[in-house]
């Protein structure tokens, strides 16, 4: 089951790794799942340590990432099933949940999930008015009205009279 690696002793047998979240909870993960994260793989290659502490990722996010890694490490599942799992995985999640996921996957370097989540976030923002984005994500507009008008005037090439949907 474990991916064979020329590095040898580490991945010789099926092993588990303990990952601790910033909330202090510990998760038992098979090594074949953990090495799908480039950062975890590096840590495992450098140290014999079986306990990895992630001081930046909370319980809820870590549990989700581990669920994803374990599914993708399962050799019994076909690629199609994994793809539909990915779609299922990101659908219906709140923007903030996605945000912590994208940060966690960026930290752990789980590229595939990072891209999927980022795409989902982009889908939420797609074709929206600037005002909508500000309101939705609580972005404080610190421009004066004059300054904002000035930017729009300077970048006139990007500010045609296009009207976007305002949800």
């Amino acid at each position, binding site marked *: 089951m474990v991916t064979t690696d020329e590095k040898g002793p580490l991945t010789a047998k099926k092993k588990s790794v303990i990952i601790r979240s*910033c909330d202090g909870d510990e998760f038992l993960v098979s090594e074949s799942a953990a090495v799908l994260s480039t*950062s*975890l793989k*590096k*840590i495992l290659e*450098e*140290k014999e*340590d079986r*306990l*990895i*502490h*992630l*001081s*930046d*990722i*909370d319980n809820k996010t870590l549990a989700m990432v581990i669920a994803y890694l374990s599914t993708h490490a399962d050799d019994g599942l076909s690629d199609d099933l994994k793809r539909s799992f990915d779609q299922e995985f990101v659908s219906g999640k709140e*923007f*903030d949940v996605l*945000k*912590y996921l*994208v*940060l*966690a996957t*960026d*930290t*752990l*370097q789980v590229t595939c999930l*990072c*891209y999927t989540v*980022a*795409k989902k*976030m*982009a*889908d939420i*923002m*797609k*074709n*929206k008015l*600037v005002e909508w*984005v*500000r309101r939705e*994500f*609580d*972005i*404080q*507009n*610190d*421009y004066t009205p004059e300054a*904002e008008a000035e*930017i*729009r005037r300077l*970048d006139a*090439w*990007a*500010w*045609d*009279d*296009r*009207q976007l949907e305002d949800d």
Partner: protein
Amino acid sequence: MQAAASCKKLRTPRPKKYFVDRLSPLPNDVLHRVLSYLDFLDVVRTSVLSKRWRFVWTSVPYLNFNMDWFLKYNYNERFECLEPQIKFWDFIKWSLLLRDGSQIIKICMYSDNMMIDQLNGLIRVAARQKVQELCFLGGDYTSKELEFPRGLCETLIVLTLNLCDTIPLRVTTVFSSLQSLTLRGVHIPCDTAEKLLSNGCAKLENIYLEDCQIKDLEQIDILACNLKNLTIVNVCTCDRFWAVGSFDSKLRICAPKLLSFCYIGPVLRGFALENTISLKNVSIRLLRVPGNYQVEYKNHLLCPARFIGLNSAKSLTLSTLVVKDRKFGLSRDKKLPSLFIRLKEIPWSRRKSRKALENRSPWKSRIEDIACLSYNVKFIQVSNLDGSEFVLELVKFLLQNGKVLQKMEIMHRGGERKQKNFKELITLPKASSEVVISFPEYSQRKIPWFDRGDSDPEYDD
């Protein structure tokens, strides 16, 4: 115990419970990743969100330009064609000029009416920027060439050209970093074909060609030492796409790492797979086969001797025409565990060919297939059955000879009319005692590309 030291630090503060900006604190590279899926017009407009956002767009390395918005909001009857075009290219040029100088990784551009001169300019910018991924969707009606300068040939990793018209492509040198090549609606002159397909593109893993023309080549060589997937759909070698015998060259494939090969298109004049020991899945569907092909095209794809190289395939998918000659081209030494037969509808207007089909010698007379069928094939799937004698006989033949057959899936075309014929199949004599016959829904098992365009005639009377 703190192994986290070597783990990349999360660069944002911990989530706070109170009312706070939900987007801006993300680090720039994560923001770039999110913005990479948006139209670049939306990306540029983020500059007025707040001061934090003023220059975020200038370093986004993924650019998507889409002319749709410019067409939709600049529609003007008097300048119906040109005005949106000019604004669109204006937008592209300003977005490139006002960047902060950081590298561009990907340029994707959709426009249904491309100005080739402008596009060639954009390609030169891409070359200067050492862009890794280039994607042009849309098309134009022009005979001008798309030109790829040397610099770009060396840096590109992914190239996708999906054009409506067959636009000629000229490349200066081999694509030494290219991993994935998708060409649709492209005219590939012979020197370009040689640079792209035969030699040099050492990193190429995926090739997808559809509706392309490759002209003036006696033999098309696909030589790629790292190629894993090769799909050729309706590629021809002469001007007339839909003419009989529109592929007038030989095709030779030499790819030791090839896993999957799919060919859909006209009969080939010659075909050889060499050194394809890794091959797993093969799908072959022929279109527009001339009625007298057996006489005129002796050395064509259909001839079993030309199936060299398919020997190690794990699954073989064939359409009606390939099996209509009552042979699968399976030789004794093939170790093929799965066989898929995708029958195609023969329109009633083509009764002649239908009749010819039904009057051929019976299946059992073809003994050369039996060895492989008997001892290797474990799974057979027959799709789109219409319940005629011909296909029932085929299923009977397969069941009687498949000694190690474990599973057979039969998918019939909609309609109740002949369903009871299929139910009778379960009671037929079988060579294997373990075989399980099931009748899944056709739609659940469709193969992309292969089952597309069923209206294409496979026969030509």
